[in-house]
């Protein structure tokens, strides 16, 4: 981490910053440009929503900023450290320490309990004792309202509960940035509200930055800033009234 170059001369110090980000998908004749020189600054403690039609590049941008996908060109800084161009090992380490993901599907490991699923990122980070990890995982489950279901296997929980466990898991290592890709896409209205309220509340309490990709206008309106996207670039940035 320390050998990565720092972004030069930023006074506002955004938590995540990208410039001229480009990404292509496909091969040969099917090669399509998904991201077209995207620029973005995300400030600490704020909640952002990326909206736009399907196929405009929202998820690809999210995965690229989250270092799950590799940019074809452009630069990314996380906490003033240039991470674009970092090798796979460094990118994976940054994900573990700095970024929490919430996907449309919960992706919980069905063989593990809710508690164990939340402990996985902590185990990888390896900075806490087993007891401390269990205690933290249990607290997170309490915070998402599932304290009494900590011993349940993931597949013994409802869809809404599974997504709440996924949020708790994303928060496990107290990341600076949470990237959520359609986190309520598979939930009914009631559970969607619970999940998004939970995500926003916990992020604000812990001064975390959230970037949500969503089609849901209600969710977008609940965020601090909406970033509409069209054909691989941001159309404009607009502050809610």
């Amino acid at each position, binding site marked *: 981490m320390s050998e990565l170059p720092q972004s030069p001369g930023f006074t506002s110090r955004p938590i995540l910053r990208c410039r001229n980000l480009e990404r292509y998908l496909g091969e040969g004749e099917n090669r399509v440009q998904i991201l077209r020189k995207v620029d973005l600054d995300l400030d600490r403690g704020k909640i952002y929503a990326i909206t736009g039609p399907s196929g405009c590049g929202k998820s690809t941008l999210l995965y690229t900023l989250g270092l*799950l996908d590799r940019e074809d060109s452009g630069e990314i800084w996380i906490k003033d450290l240039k991470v674009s161009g970092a090798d796979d*090992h460094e990118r*994976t380490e940054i994900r573990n320490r700095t970024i929490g993901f919430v*996907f449309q*599907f919960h*992706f919980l490991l069905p063989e593990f309990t809710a508690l164990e699923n939340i402990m996985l990122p902590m185990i990888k980070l390896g900075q806490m004792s087993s007891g401390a990890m269990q205690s933290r995982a249990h607290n997170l489950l309490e915070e998402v309202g599932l304290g009494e279901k900590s011993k349940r296997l993931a597949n013994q929980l409802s869809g809404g509960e599974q997504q709440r466990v996924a949020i708790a898991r994303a928060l496990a290592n107290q990341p600076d940035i949470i990237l959520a*890709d359609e986190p309520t*896409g598979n939930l009914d209205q009631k559970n969607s509200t619970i999940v998004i309220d939970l995500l926003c509340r916990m992020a604000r309490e812990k001064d975390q930055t959230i970037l949500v990709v969503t089609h849901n206008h209600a969710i977008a309106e609940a965020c601090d800033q909406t970033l509409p996207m069209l054909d691989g670039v941001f159309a404009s940035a607009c502050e809610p009234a």
Partner: protein
Amino acid sequence: MLMSLAGITFGVAFFIVTQAQTSGFEGFFVKTILGTNGALRVRERIQDTLRSMSVDDQESGGFQISHKEGKRYVGDVAQPELVADAIRQFGNVSGVSKVVTGNGQLVLRGQTRPAQIYGIVLDDHLGVSDLDEQIVFGELSDFRKTANGVLLSRYLADRLDVGLDEKIVLKVAGKSRKLTVSAIYETGVRDIDKVRMFIHLRTARSVLGKAFGASFLQVSLFDNNRAPQDARRMIDVTQHHVSEWQRREKVWLDVFKILRISSALTVSVIILISGLGMFSVLAIIVMEKTKEIAILRSMGFQRRDISHIFLWQGFVITTAGTLSGWMLGFFMTLGLANLPIRIRGIFSTDHFVVNWSISHYLVAALIAFVVVMLASYFPARRAARLEPADVIRGTSG
């Protein structure tokens, strides 16, 4: 996964059993031949054949150049005591026995059987053979105190219908000698049991008319595996032909070796098939668990962490299969050791002979680990190479 576990278990167990059995019989064969014909045999004297060129010069006294052309083997061991003393100086030698041999005929109640006479000094010969263990009827002590005693093989005794303490006539070159059957032995080696009989050396010298020398010296060693090296050194020292047991029994030893290797290869196929099964199972798991792999990668697990998960599965299955295979192999070997089977010809046994060796267990485990870990490596590598974004993108609505 259970099928792979079962395959490894049976593969390891069968490997242990077949190796215990083949090496058991091989070891028993070696013990038999060492107990009958000894580790080394010292026979004819070596005589160099020389071609000489001489110059007869009165002033300088003349000189002679000798060219070694080859060597030939002549006679028996003419001075057995001297040669035996020289051989006893070797640190690895545990015993030396002079033997005088010759051919004769055993006659009883009108029946005649050819016989190969072995004249021995009993105590010396007990030091170079397992003759005491091969006695099936009678006592060696009776032979020791009977000057005209004979140790007859069970085969000859059966054919001549002769029992203990009965008299039998030995005919050699027209001369006859009455002998008393002191004990009956059985080596299990048909070629020996068909003809060999033991009498005292002094009696043999008298019957065969060999007042001096010995037909050969039979030598036993502390470390039988060093026989070839000792034989070469003895040839240099004694100038007699010395043959080691490995050379004498090369054909049978090669047969046992081939059997051991071929059975190991055959049984290893079971482990190989288990490895292929393991490969298939893990490859399917990798395909089924792409989402789980992707989420683990997204939360910070490195590629090597992912491959370790699958390698660990292979390791656990191999360890469990090897441990259960060891247990099954142990009990199968135990059962086999008590299984009755009558074998005569190259040795004598009434049950399966097994060799308990930790090396069989270790080699079986090694084969299982190499095969299954290799089979696990490729799916593990494939899992590690999965790109999380591709997987997650594919599952998004």
